[in-house]
């Protein structure tokens, strides 16, 4: 055995050596993440005890049930290791991790020196301390070998006893039953899956499994396993003296993290190998991920948290050193075909929580939501799990659900979502049904991509199929499909979503850095936050530009090349490459002189279409780009900013000036608001409306800020939306005067401008931070409201009309063709 230690941080290829112990889901996921962000950093060796490449352990259950084959569940075949120059030693467990010599060696005698180690040894099935556990025919349920043994047993033997009525035990019982065995489940507590289900849901589950022919003995303690003369198990004895005949016993009584190797190497272990928020063990050269670790006192037994760990560990192995793992919320879905069950978070509740329950035992449906204050903290769904991913998202993002509460139980579909024919149940959709209306992606395409490319996360599905990559309204459906096909909720996208693929920083990280470090240009931000790409992508650049301009008005450097074409050209691009021009008409009012100028411009520039928009103004469609500056000059009207993430329209009704019902002068308030706030850029477009009485002809109920005149003053509503997902605006405050309306509106919008994420409309912003938060800042705290309002006025001060042709923007060469200046 060659075991001499080489000095210096380099392997054969001049790179530091990384040795991964454990060829399972967490270890290989970490390597994939590492290869994606820093491909050539290490010389990598992987050791695996099992004689297989990395496979999807979760899908052992469908394999046992005969629904999938072993070949279908391979995640990284031998070619993957070869393609990435990874040396793989399988079929022999690592027996020594020598931290003095810095080598890892396996039972077969292979020894490899390391600079960094990643331990990902997973867990093993727990064993009851009773006589007979070593008999032949007594199995755990963990790997391909166990599954093969069970399949073989089912072919020859007839009676199986599964000890443990948790997730694994029930999946094993179902699989064996599908293979024709006579199955009894012995379970100590009074209900099945008591760690995921409350008693009511547990009983429903038991009923439907019993209907498939599985027998249950609950509140039963196993006391011994009895074998025959050949040492093969034949019976299970319970504490009350009951004897159950058995040719196969599957023990599914929990899992124990594999810590032996780490313990022998002297690493600090409790239940698992203890790691910090960067997944580092007490030896700084050694990292650990997966079921073998203990983080903040917690061990995990599901893949979603392991994948989050993998991301963080990869970040540190790549020496980026900024991301942290802060623990996970987990969700469970039982993978028994035909049984829909979902559970997440604190489903039992306590004295601080409240419950909303819908129970229809006859119909086989049960739903329970557990709320703590304004947050959803747990849920159990049985029979109808369509909304599982939605509830899970609300929990994970700690969304304030106060305003949703009344409708929460009825699910996401109930919130109104256009463009999907009311289709919200992925499981029952036919393959040819369209899921993503923007990109024309049907269910079958998504299912195929998930299967073929072994996709785990929403982002990956987007990359491969484009489904939900545009307007995003089908995200929930795509997540459901992912859940049904992949068999578990491993679609869990971490709460802290990075801004885009060029960075791991979140929107909030970037905003803080720009403010705290006084950054003034896109290159400065990218440099400061270590962007991975030289000049970003189409997603991050416009966001950075907005964050800079909104944080440091009059100071930050605007980058027109980081703006979407509409904002660069100050007009909206059309499908044929021409543009549309929407001049501003204050509060939806116009005059004979304006209409005459518009008519002349239409004739002069042969503009094919003139249309009244849904925003109370006029759209000139089909203008050639070269003509834009002249069109603006001749219109001699202010820019309508229809092209920008900015204040769009302020719709008004005729109000008290003419209308027989009007109690307030809505038209003039609308005009005043529009004149005060136009040119205001924001994370997304902003629309206002002012109605003169509660008949609300200006549709104030679906605007970012909607104002309704009443006898005694004005009611202000915020965070409405009339687009993809119709959301009714929420009452914010009632004030007396027009000046108060302006100050409250301005302060609310400034809060959104300062704290909103790019492309987040007010409805999403308020959902994220909570309406109460906005009220505290804007309504309750007068000084804070003033401050916000003053900052908005400062930002808007002296901003030019971008259409003024004498502005540099209007004169930019962008509008001129190259051919016009070149002589061939």
């Amino acid at each position: 055995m060659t075991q001499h230690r080489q000095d210096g941080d380099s392997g054969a290829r001049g790179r530091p050596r990384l040795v991964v112990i454990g060829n399972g889901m967490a270890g290989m996921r970490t390597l994939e993440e590492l290869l994606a962000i820093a491909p050539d950093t290490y010389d990598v060796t992987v050791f695996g005890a099992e004689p297989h490449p990395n496979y999807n352990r979760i899908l052992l259950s469908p394999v046992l049930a005969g629904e999938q084959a072993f070949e279908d569940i391979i995640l990284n075949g031998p070619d993957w290791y070869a393609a990435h120059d990874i040396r793989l030693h399988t079929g022999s467990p690592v027996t020594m991790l020598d931290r003095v010599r810095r080598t890892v060696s396996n039972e077969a005698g292979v020894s490899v020196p390391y600079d960094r180690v990643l331990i990902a040894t997973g867990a093993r099935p727990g064993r009851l301390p009773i006589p007979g556990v070593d008999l032949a025919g007594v199995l755990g349920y963990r790997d391909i070998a166990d599954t093969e043994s069970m399949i073989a047993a089912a072919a020859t033997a007839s009676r199986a006893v599964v000890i443990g009525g948790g997730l694994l035990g029930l999946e094993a019982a179902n699989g064996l039953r599908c293979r024709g065995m006579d199955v009894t489940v012995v379970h100590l507590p009074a209900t099945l899956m008591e760690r995921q289900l409350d008693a009511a849901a547990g009983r429903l589950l038991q009923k439907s499994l019993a209907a498939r022919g599985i027998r249950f003995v609950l509140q039963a303690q196993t006391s011994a396993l009895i074998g025959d003369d050949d040492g093969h198990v034949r019976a299970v004895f319970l504490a009350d003296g009951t004897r159950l005949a058995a040719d196969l016993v599957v023990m599914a009584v929990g899992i124990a993290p594999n810590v032996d190797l780490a313990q022998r190497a002297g690493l600090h272990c409790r239940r698992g190998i203890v790691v910090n928020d960067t997944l580092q063990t007490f030896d700084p050269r050694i990292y650990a991920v997966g079921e073998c670790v203990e983080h903040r006192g917690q061990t995990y037994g599901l893949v979603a948290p392991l994948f989050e760990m993998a991301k963080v560990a990869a970040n540190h192995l790549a020496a980026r050193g900024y991301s942290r793992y802060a623990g996970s919320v987990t969700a469970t879905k039982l993978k028994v075909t035909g049984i829909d069950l979902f559970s997440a978070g604190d489903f039992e509740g306590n004295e601080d929580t409240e419950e909303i329950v819908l129970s229809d035992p006859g119909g086989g449906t049960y739903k329970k939501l557990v709320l703590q204050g304004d947050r959803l903290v747990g849920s159990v769904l049985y029979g109808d799990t369509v909304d599982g991913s939605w509830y899970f998202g609300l929990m994970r993002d700690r969304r304030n659900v106060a305003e949703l509460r009344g409708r929460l139980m009825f699910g996401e579909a109930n919130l109104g979502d256009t463009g999907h024919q009311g289709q919200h149940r992925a499981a029952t959709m036919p393959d040819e049904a369209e899921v993503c209306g923007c990109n024309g992606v049907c269910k079958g395409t998504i299912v195929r991509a998930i299967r073929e490319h072994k996709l785990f996360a929403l982002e990956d599905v987007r990359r491969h199929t484009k489904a939900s990559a545009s307007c995003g309204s089908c995200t929930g459906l795509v997540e459901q499909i992912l859940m049904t096909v992949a068999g578990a909720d491993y679609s869990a996208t971490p709460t802290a979503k990075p801004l885009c693929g060029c960075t791991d920083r979140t929107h909030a990280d970037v905003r803080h850095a720009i403010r705290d470090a006084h950054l003034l240009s896109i290159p400065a931000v990218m440099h400061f936050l270590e962007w991975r790409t030289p000049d970003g992508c189409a997603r991050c650049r416009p966001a950075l530009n907005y964050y800079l301009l909104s944080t440091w008005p009059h100071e930050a450097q605007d980058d027109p090349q980081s703006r979407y074409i509409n904002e660069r050209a100050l007009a909206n691009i059309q499908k044929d490459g021409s543009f549309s021009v929407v001049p501003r008409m204050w509060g939806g009012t116009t005059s004979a002189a304006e209409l005459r100028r518009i008519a002349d411009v239409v004739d002069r520039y042969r503009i094919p279409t003139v249309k009244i928009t849904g925003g109370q103004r006029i759209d000139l469609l089909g203008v050639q780009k070269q003509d834009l500056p002249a069109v603006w000059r001749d219109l001699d009207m202010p820019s309508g900013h229809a092209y920008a993430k900015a204040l769009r329209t302020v719709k008004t009704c005729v109000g008290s000036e003419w209308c027989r019902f009007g109690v307030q002068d809505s038209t003039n308030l609308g005009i005043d608001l529009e004149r005060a706030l136009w040119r205001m850029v924001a994370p997304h477009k902003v629309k206002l409306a002012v109605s003169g009485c509660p008949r609300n002809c200006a549709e104030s109920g679906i605007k970012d800020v909607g104002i309704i005149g009443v006898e005694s003053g004005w009611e202000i509503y915020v965070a409405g939306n009339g687009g993809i997902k119709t959301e009714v605006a929420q009452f914010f405050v009632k004030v007396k005067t027009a000046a108060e309306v302006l100050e409250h509106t301005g302060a609310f919008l400034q809060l959104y401008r300062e704290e909103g994420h790019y492309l987040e409309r007010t409805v999403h912003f308020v959902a994220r931070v909570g309406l109460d938060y906005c009220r505290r800042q804007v309504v309750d705290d007068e000084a804070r409201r003033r401050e916000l309002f003053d900052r908005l006025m400062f930002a808007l001060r002296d901003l030019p009309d971008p259409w003024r042709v004498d502005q540099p923007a209007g004169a930019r060469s962008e509008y001129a063709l190259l051919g016009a200046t070149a002589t061939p």
Partner: protein
Amino acid sequence: MSDASATERDSAWIALCDVDELPRAGARVFRATCGDIAVFRTIDDHVFALADRCPHKGGPLSQGLVCGHTVTCPLHAWVIALDSGEAQAPDAGRTPRHAVKVDAGRVWLQAARMPEDADAPSARA
């Protein structure tokens, strides 16, 4: 192409403009007889020329956001590689290229498609 003189004219090098007249991380359009050509300048001052038509639905690539050596189409955000004209997966399609060179700060272009792209499917307008 049947018109021999047009072929000749298109394969000649045309002096377009100075590099500095192209916006960095941006593009401008040259209106050739065979259709509009988008001339791109990247952040690191490489110059590329593609037919100004996205392989998806003919969107004007010249109006897209230029990041690295790619352009994101302004209509539905397909990402096209500037060097090969290929759309990035999962989208598939190719935009014909044109030869460009920069000589002493001057940008030169051939209005004819690059020979190997001559048969590239033309995008639908």
